[in-house]
């Protein structure tokens, strides 16, 4: 999957429970990746209004990749029960700027 300013490109659907995410940052900015089990991208925000409230989603969070420099490629291995998931970059303003996508695990 690829992260750009300010967009995440990833498959919308996977059939295996074991998901290996190869995250390639192609944007000029640094980006992180948070995988949250959620029905859709309507996630609660922090009071600052510009970032997702990760503490509120702590139980739903299934995977995190810390911010990676532009050009970096990182791996994230996840055991995902079937369901709907949202992949976001929660750096300041990035989520609201469009960096989120949904993933369905069958």
């Amino acid at each position, binding site marked *: 999957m690829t992260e750009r300013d300010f967009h995440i490109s990833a498959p919308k659907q996977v059939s295996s429970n074991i998901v290996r995410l190869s995250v390639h940052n192609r944007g000029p900015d640094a980006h992180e990746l948070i995988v949250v089990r959620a029905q859709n991208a309507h996630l609660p925000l922090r009071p600052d209004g*510009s970032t997702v409230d990760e503490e509120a989603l702590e139980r739903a969070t299934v995977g995190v990749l810390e911010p990676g420099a532009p050009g970096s490629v990182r791996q994230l291995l996840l055991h995902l029960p079937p369901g709907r998931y949202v992949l976001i970059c929660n750096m300041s303003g990035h989520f609201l*700027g469009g960096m989120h996508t949904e993933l369905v695990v069958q």
Partner: protein
Amino acid sequence: MHRGRAFRPFTARGRGVVAAILLTFALFSAISVFLTISATGRSQHRAAVVEVAARQRTLAERYVKEVLLARSGAQADPTYTAAILTRSAHALLDGGTAPAVNGDDDETKLSAASGTIVRAQLNQERRLVTDLTATGSALLAHRPVTTIPLTAHERVAIVDPVGRLRVLSELTANVSLNAARSIATRADANISSLITLQVALGVAGLLMSLLLAFALIAATRRQTAHFRSLVTSSTDLVLVFGPGGCRYVSQSVTDMLGRPERDMLGHGFARCVHPDDRVSVQAASAHGEPHQIVFRLLDKFGEWRHLEANVTNLRNDRRVRGVVLNARDITERVQLEEELTHQAFHDGLTGLANRALFRDRLDQAVARSERSLEDLAVLLVDLDGFKQVNDGLGHDAGDHLLQQVAARFAEVIRPSDTLARLGGDEFALLLEGANESGAVVAARRLLECLSESVDIAGRRLALGTSIGIVLHPGGPGESEDLIRHADLAMYAAKGAGRGRYEVFRHEMAREFGELLGLEHELRLGLEQGEFSVHYQPEIDVDTHSIVGVEALVRWNSPTRGEVPPLRFIPIAEATGLIMPLGEFVLGEACRQTAQWCREGLLPDPFVTWVNLSGKQLSHGGVSELVQNALEAAALAPSMLGLEVTETAIVVGGDAGEQARAALEELHNQGVRIAIDDFGTGFSSLGHLRRFPVDMIKVDRSFVQGVEHDTKDAAITANLTSLAHALGLTAIAEGIESEGQLASVRELGCDLAQGYLFARPMPAEKMAELLADDADSRSAEGFRASA
């Protein structure tokens, strides 16, 4: 022809290496400084870029606040902030001047950003600033914000214009922060690279310097080894002295002395130096002066080696810091010089001092005596009869004799005395501090040490010496005078009977001066015919007739008048003039006798006696001389008689044998032989038996007392008896009175001679006497026949 480079030991190599090291340091230092300056400049610039980039975040947030304030009607100027944001974003990306923020900072000149990521981030930032300021402007103008196209690819789903503005501000702030971080990270990376490069440069420079230093050390070692090899293989001796004594000795020194180096290093060196040379060596090694010294070192065999050294003061030369002695071993040269000096001043045969050294010692002694007023004495010693040994037994025997005599003399002198052989059989002894009694004691010792006979060539020889002593009472004096006076005293001792010593008296000098004059006149007189022969008749004691004459030489000097034979004969013998003089007398006597014979003046038998000196006999050729004289005068040999003294025939060896043979040959031809002065010498009966003798002449010393002295009478009687027993004729000399004549006749003498009958007279007078005697004989004969 191949010509190699001139040998210039290490003039360039060491300098080249040092220069290479310095150049390496300079090059690496220059690169390092350049990189540091360059990196510092870049760092300053990057710091400014980071500052501006970081400022964009604050400006974005400030822009949102000012837009909201302005929208609510408050006093705010968001367009100013928007302009700063936009211009700064452009300057950060493409270079230019980032404007100043009022009351905050100054304008900042920036160059275009480099690096793909940084430029992408700044480009994104610029797009976000565009989107932000466009959104802000729309909000202030109450236009719908959703219609504003977004250039930074953001997909803001928020329709609320303020929320939308805040998200864009957050995105701008975020990307600005990341851009600042990227720039800072690049700056950190550059500094790290610079540090790495500096370390690499330092290590490379250090390695290269070490390499060059090793090369320099190797070159220096080669130089040192080369010079050490030169120094150690050189036969010259090198010594270096510093404040702590000897610091270095070359191997040639240890080789020469056979001593280990440790013996000579430090202050131990002084122990190897001859005590007399220590002061000069100490001065030279401490001060570098004198520039040349000669000193001695003790080798392991305990022998002194002589060294000649050039002294070089290198105390101010930081490479040496000492005094250098370049020395040569001159031991052999010194020994040769000493040997030559010894040979020049010593007699090769006896090892004693020679004339030159004796003279030098005497000069010094006289000079000392002049200052100290101390006595000194010179003894001149001459062996008696040495010539006979030399002639009779050969020169080897003579040399052996001289060596034995020298050894005996050396045993009886004091160590402080100087004993020398002046030449031939002449020795000299210098006694410093000796007065007359001391000199006499020394002379007696010399005489006594030869009292025991010497074994030479299988014979035991009794030796005697004549010693002349001269005394110098202290004060000024001349060596030459002392030697001459000692010589005179020695001759006086010889003249006084040999085997004795005489102390010089000034009268001797006067006598000697007269002798010298006499010798000269004698020689002149011979040339000018001042000599004549007188004759004294010999009488038959019974018949009173003349039976012979003794030829006696007379010298009528034009200056001195009649000179007695006793005065000039010794001089003639000493100077060799006796040979021509004797030849003259012999020839003249033969000629005159032959003339008398022809004139019929001579009785028969008649003998003309001529004295033959010992010198003539030992010289050889007597037989030929006599035969020539006889032939020249046409005289019958039986009319010639030769008188020889006892001492002339007691000479032993070849000379004695030669004389005996010559006399025997002449005797066989008819020539008569008589022994003169019989009884005064040392002749033995053996001599009388071996020599062809016809007559002995009883010495006048016995004849003069024969009349009254019973001893003289007894001796005369015995001598006469002895002659008769051997079948010889006896003649008494010196008859001056009738009483003496009567006595000798009574004692048995056959013939007599003396003033009673006639004094020696010229040939003419003698001819008259002979004529008278002939007449009387004729008368006698006539009376007898009648």
